[in-house]
């Protein structure tokens, strides 16, 4: 399938996402330039990690105003698949395509390490090849990944199944010690209420190859590919409701 990876000024994991999708997973990948408005026919748009626009003001705060984001918002409104990784997640919350916000880690420092994630909802385009409770190992590397949202909104998200991934220990328990950044309810990844926009702080594109970090991140991209390969899924909303 055709993927679009946006390159903002200050994107850093854009090359990793392009390499991972194209060279490791054999996908058709089109880099998208932030100053353009065309998505070049992408069936899934990836907002990569990094420090877009230097993260000046606030993470993602400036990127949301870039020309390409207008097209992304329209694409998402039409049911197109969008995945934001790390800084991409931050941009999607700033653009109000995803609920909540990402604030400084409770350690007040940047953290690069292996985390374990539990799949909370496997009926989404981003997790449909996993099962609920599956544990995936991926790296995080961020300074501002502490997920916050109003309690009322969190309750609604829980009910709708919008919380897709949680930080857990190797036993699958969402303990405080396994929560690297202090995210509310150990949240690592969320979807919008239409389940076509997904944001996560961990980096699936850095977990595609056994000889590097491990390959659990493939599950995310394989899910998207599997979902998109079913013709009736295209453009269909609310597929992920529990």
């Amino acid at each position, binding site marked *: 399938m055709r993927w679009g990876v946006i390159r903002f000024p200050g994107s*850093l*994991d854009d090359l990793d996402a392009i390499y991972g999708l194209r060279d490791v997973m054999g996908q058709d990948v089109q880099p998208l330039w932030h100053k353009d408005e065309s998505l070049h026919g992408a069936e899934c748009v990836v907002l990569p990690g990094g420090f877009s626009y*230097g993260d000046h003001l606030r993470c993602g705060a400036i990127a949301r105003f870039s020309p390409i984001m207008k097209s992304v918002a329209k694409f998402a409104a039409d049911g197109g698949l969008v995945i934001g990784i790390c800084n991409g997640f931050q941009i999607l919350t700033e653009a109000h395509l995803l609920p909540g916000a990402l604030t400084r880690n409770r350690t007040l420092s*940047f953290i*690069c390490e292996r985390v374990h994630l539990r799949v909370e909802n496997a009926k989404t385009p981003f997790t449909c090849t996993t099962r609920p409770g599956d544990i995936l190992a991926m790296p995080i*590397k961020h300074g501002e990944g502490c997920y916050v949202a109003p309690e009322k909104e969190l309750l609604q998200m829980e009910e709708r199944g919008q919380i897709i991934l949680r930080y857990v220990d190797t036993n699958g328990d969402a303990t405080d010690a396994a929560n690297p950044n202090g995210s509310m309810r150990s949240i690592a990844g969320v979807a919008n209420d239409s389940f076509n926009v997904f944001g996560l702080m961990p980096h699936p*594109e850095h977990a595609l190859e056994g000889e590097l970090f491990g390959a659990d991140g493939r599950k995310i991209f394989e899910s998207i590919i599997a979902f998109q390969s079913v013709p009736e899924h295209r453009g269909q909303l609310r597929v992920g409701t529990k």
Partner: protein
Amino acid sequence: MSTAPVSLAGEPRVDLAQAHAHGLTNDEFHRIEKLLGRTPTFTELGVFSVMWSEHCSYKSSRRHLKTLPSGGDLVAVGEGENAGAIDVGDGWLAVFKIESHNHPSYVEPYQGAATGVGGILRDIFTMGARPIANMDSLKFGSFDHPRTRYLLGGVVGGIGGYGNCVGVPTVAGETMFDAAYNGNILVNAFSLGLARKGELQSARAKGVGNPVLYVGSATGRDGIHGASLLASAEFDATSEAKRPTVQVGDPFQEKLLIEACLEAAKTGAMVAMQDMGAAGLTSSSSEMAARGGLGIVIDLDKVPLREATLTPYEILLSESQERMLIVAERGREAELQAVFEKWDLHAVVIGTITDDARWRATWRGKVVADIPVRALADEAPMYDRPAAPPKTLPMRPAPIRTHPEPSRALRELLGNPNVGSKKWIYRQYDSLVLSNTMVGPGSDAAVLRIKGSKRGLAMKVDSNPRACALDPYLGTVGTVCEAVRNVACAGAGPAGITNCLNYGNPERPEIMWQFTRGIAALREASLAFKAPVISGNVSFYNETEGRAIPPTPTIAVVGTLDDTSKRVTQFFKTPGDYILIVRTAKPSLAASEYEAMYGSSPEGLSPIDLLRESRLVSALLGAIDQGLIRSAHDVAEGGLAVALAEACFNPDKLLGAKIDGLSTSDTAELFGEGPSTIVLSAKENDVAAVHKAFETVGIECRTIGRVTENARLSISRASIDADLNELNRIYESALPGRL
């Protein structure tokens, strides 16, 4: 003929006193007057003071550095450019260098360290290479010193803040705490980039009439005299006041510069490129002209400024970060400008390459500086400073009275921040971006793959100031050997060396003696391992109130693996495997962490036989290539007992070790360091072959025990039987426990 440049209204008078205030000596000032045939203008005085500073001119070290072996079959660039380059196979060149940013980091730790990373990155991509890995070597004072925590937090924050934000992984490093660095910390930053063969950029100006482009951030007042007054003088009580001489970094601009410069290089319209580092516009322009044997004229009115009120003096001496100078092919400057415009960066033509071999700057229609290019570069002073060994013996800890129980010493060593885990530091660094990191921080050396090739690179940075303090020659030899062993333990043969030579005030004969002994050692070790010294940096004046740091040559070694699937880490893999040690000589407690903690023993440093060291490395590489080695870990801080514990700390699963084959259990055997011991593990069926690999070249190889499922470290002769879960907790909390 040139017209004499004008002095500007309001500029101070230029005389001997003014020259002194600029850090120039009487002789140097007179030499300037002689070279110019007149008194320099104030602007010119500023220009000379930075270009002739120790930091820029290497006036005390140049004649010694020339003796280092920098050539070889695989060397693509050994000297004369911003960094060295070696051929690492499959059409790739590895471009690397290490540089100090010690004084700025002491005065302003976050920005000092951040701009240290920024500066070394520019040295790499100015060569047309994409930076793919950073390392750093850090020395702080003791935790008893009130500034240590502040400096540690600031430096680590600055390295992470910059490196993480430019998308270059920090893959390895080393950190040490010692009271000897209380008043003068060391921050040495290494960067490595990859370039395709034939795509290296030069910093040599060519083509009279070619336009000179200024690229990147606008020029401000930051960092003026960073090179001359901050980096090239000792510290004293007034050093705090030098904070404005520290530059401020913007990694976002640097990231754009990396992408834009590499893209611009591909247009073919670029003739030469150089970053504006120390001494900014002055050094970049004069060095490019000097390399090409040409002249250059710069119109300072064209330089993008942050404030319109900057004087020519300030514009020329500013060390504002994230700026590059590019010589373009005449008529093709628009092609380059289009690339920089795409990345929203300034790209302005500010000058022209000339044939008159003069370095000229104009401002508001007047010539403000007019100096022969050679006077700034080749004709800078070069000193043969006197060198003499110190009259007093180096300080050692008080003699030891009673040795602690080995099991207690092991626990206390693991809990010492110099020995314990550095995870608190490296977890603040992105070590994964660019998807090449096969072995990241926490093993003997980092291993990176080269995409599209079976080949890979291993790298590590090391130093051993305590040994260098006892014997600056032997200590330096040992440092090179250690870095080479670390790389070899990953399965890589040493391919090249870069060094950052940190010493005190070279005007003192005993410091110059330490330096010259270090250079001699580096030369010998480089020849022994056939690993050329392709780049480096000298940092003198690491002194506070007359007290110098211990001699600290920091050595980074880059090695190559033919096949990264054969890489090895330090961790034991499988219960039942045999544990072996190989070594060239018995270790010694001299200069060890044990000695620093408990007191000194009468013994001195063990001698090092470089021939045997290189045989040990070759034998290890051969055994790894044959697939005989499951793990390899160099014995370093804390000695053999600590190395065994570290090998058990496999991040996938804690393992144990039962050691019953040691020939002795004396303290030096357990906790001694150097000259070289490596802990190996191998499958039962391979043990005989491993022995043979080493013994046929005369290297001692001894089977000392087995890897166990049960996570206990037991060393029967020393009555050590410890729970590795507990040891691991001590090891992991060594550093966080002090913060």
